[in-house]
């Protein structure tokens, strides 16, 4: 995208949005240079929430990192767990039990619903709605969080998925509860869409705002709904077929323009696909196999004795925000020699300036909201 040319006579205003600002999703900071209300330069400033996750993880056992991954993207702790579990499985050559795989897929897709509803609500809050879409989203999200609580013991910081399967079996009646919630979910989506999709004000605010060209998106290694909104068919669930995703029938929705509206709508469509995956998985799951493989159980019981063979691996999943990858290097001891997180929020944020240039301040906020960042993951 071409840079904006600034007229000679105009005086620029530098506006500091954040780190304490109602809609920078935490402690993100943007230094925007304005010509009138138009953004001519935008500099993101990161690192206000840096917690040294990667270095800390190198100082402790593989399993002890799981609770910390919950806190990366705190809206979808289940998929963060899953990413690390898959990376560790690759590193140590473990296999997950079948029931474990099913539970993981169910949890990962529920997490997608949680994340996409929440982010759409926050996007609308950034647009200036007085919380109504957000609270409708939260209303549904709570029901899914109740499911997480029943299975893992915690609503947000689940710490549930382990290499080889999951930490604990599903409690009795959980599947029926989940089926009921999943069955009712499309009705909520219809209501949500009725409130938003055709609303003229929202369309006015989002159509052709923050357009991300396909080429730039690919070059900047953008992933997730943001990439698919530009029309690229790239979903790691399809590409890698990790876990047992090849057993389910689902489609990958794609947009055409790559603006804020497309990003919003691709998420809505993705939720509908997730519901279909969930229905299949909830029907197919059986208790023929244990929830965790015996090897995995042994690891979870005594984390410090787990010493994967020397080597390195990169395990990745399609987290709700994009490609979530864990790069692990093992030197044969019980601690990872190197541990790195490829955080989708962080990488998707890199092209913020390109999307914002030439738009108004109000649009910058909306564009930031549509990128779907969680500062815990950006700064790690």
């Amino acid at each position, binding site marked *: 995208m071409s840079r904006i040319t600034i007229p000679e006579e105009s005086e620029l205003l530098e506006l500091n949005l954040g780190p304490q600002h109602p809609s920078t999703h935490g402690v993100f900071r943007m230094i925007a240079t304005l010509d009138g209300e138009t953004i001519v330069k935008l500099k993101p400033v990161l690192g206000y929430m840096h917690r040294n996750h990667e270095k800390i993880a190198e100082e*402790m*056992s593989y*399993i*002890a*990192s*799981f*609770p*910390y991954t*919950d*806190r990366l993207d705190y809206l979808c702790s289940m998929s963060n767990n899953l990413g690390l579990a898959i990376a560790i499985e690759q590193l140590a050559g473990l296999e997950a039990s079948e029931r474990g795989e099913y539970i993981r897929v169910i949890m990962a897709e529920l997490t997608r619903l949680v994340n996409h509803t929440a982010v759409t609500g926050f996007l609308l809050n950034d647009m200036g709605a007085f919380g*109504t879409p957000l609270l*409708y989203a939260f*209303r549904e999200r*709570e029901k899914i969080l*109740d499911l997480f*609580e*029943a*299975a*893992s*013991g*915690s609503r947000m*910081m689940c*710490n549930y998925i382990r290499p080889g399967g999951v*930490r*604990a079996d599903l*409690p*009795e009646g959980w599947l029926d509860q989940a089926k009921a919630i999943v069955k009712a979910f499309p009705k909520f989506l219809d*209501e949500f869409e*009725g*409130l*938003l*999709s*055709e*609303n*003229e*004000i929202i*369309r006015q605010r989002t159509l052709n705002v923050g357009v991300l060209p396909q080429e730039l998106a690919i070059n900047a290694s953008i992933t997730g709904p943001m990439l698919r909104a530009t029309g690229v068919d790239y979903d790691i669930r399809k590409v890698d077929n990790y876990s047992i995703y090849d057993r389910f029938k689902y489609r990958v929705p794609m947009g055409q323009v790559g603006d804020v509206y497309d990003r919003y709508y691709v998420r809505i469509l993705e939720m509908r696909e997730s519901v279909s995956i969930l229905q299949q998985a909830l029907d197919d799951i059986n208790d023929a196999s244990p929830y965790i493989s015996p090897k995995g159980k042994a690891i*979870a*019981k*005594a*984390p*410090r004795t787990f010493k994967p063979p020397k080597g390195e691996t990169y395990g990745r999943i399609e987290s709700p925000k994009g490609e979530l990858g864990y790069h692990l290097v093992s030197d044969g001891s019980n601690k990872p020699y190197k541990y790195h997180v490829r955080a989708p929020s962080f990488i998707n944020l890199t092209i913020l300036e390109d999307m914002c240039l030439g738009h108004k301040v109000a649009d910058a906020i909306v564009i930031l909201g549509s990128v779907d960042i969680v500062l815990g993951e950006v700064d790690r």
Partner: protein
Amino acid sequence: MTGFGVLRGMGITLRQFIGTYRFGKWFLKLIGLDEGSGITTVAYPEVKQKHAENFRYFPFLVYDESPEDMRCVACKICEQECPPQCIHITMEKDEKGAPTKKFGRTYPAQFDIDVSICMSCRICVDVCPFDAIEMDNDYEVADYGRGPEMNFNRDKLLKSAEYFGKIKPTEHAEVEARLEPKRAKAKAAAAAAAAKAAEAAKPAEDKPADEDPSDAGSDKGDAS
């Protein structure tokens, strides 16, 4: 049509508004509309949300019969595995540095969990070989300071197995099933040891008299 989307959104919010009243719910049903979600929040201090049985908050130590009879043997595995390092354990030892035993087990003299650091991850419970630490579901632990107020000591952490059975019946049953064979074994071993000790004690009868006061002293120290 232009303007219709705006009106539809307004219709949805109005329906939810009406649906929060009893009359409204009845009215919506009467005209054949979906009756909305109603009030979904609870007025917290008066009404408390029901939590799942699995709900976890902070860990606590389990004892069986009396607080003296705690399951913890101060093996320090949880202290090592705890990701944020919030557990501090010292084993009860005599002057010579040898661990003292009660009920045939070593036990912690000090067992502190700094709950302001604890992140409720449940790894300590997973790794404990003795099922001595479990997750509580009491979440109302707010206090006016974060020093000693948030540092829960052993006496504050000790709760009975009965309490555990009350808050988490399923998990309690599992733990009991796991512990039962161990207990039987320990009982047998204790009986054998007692028999052996009784035999050993016979030749020198004045020795126990020396040990008794020191035992009593250490008990008092714990209770305070």
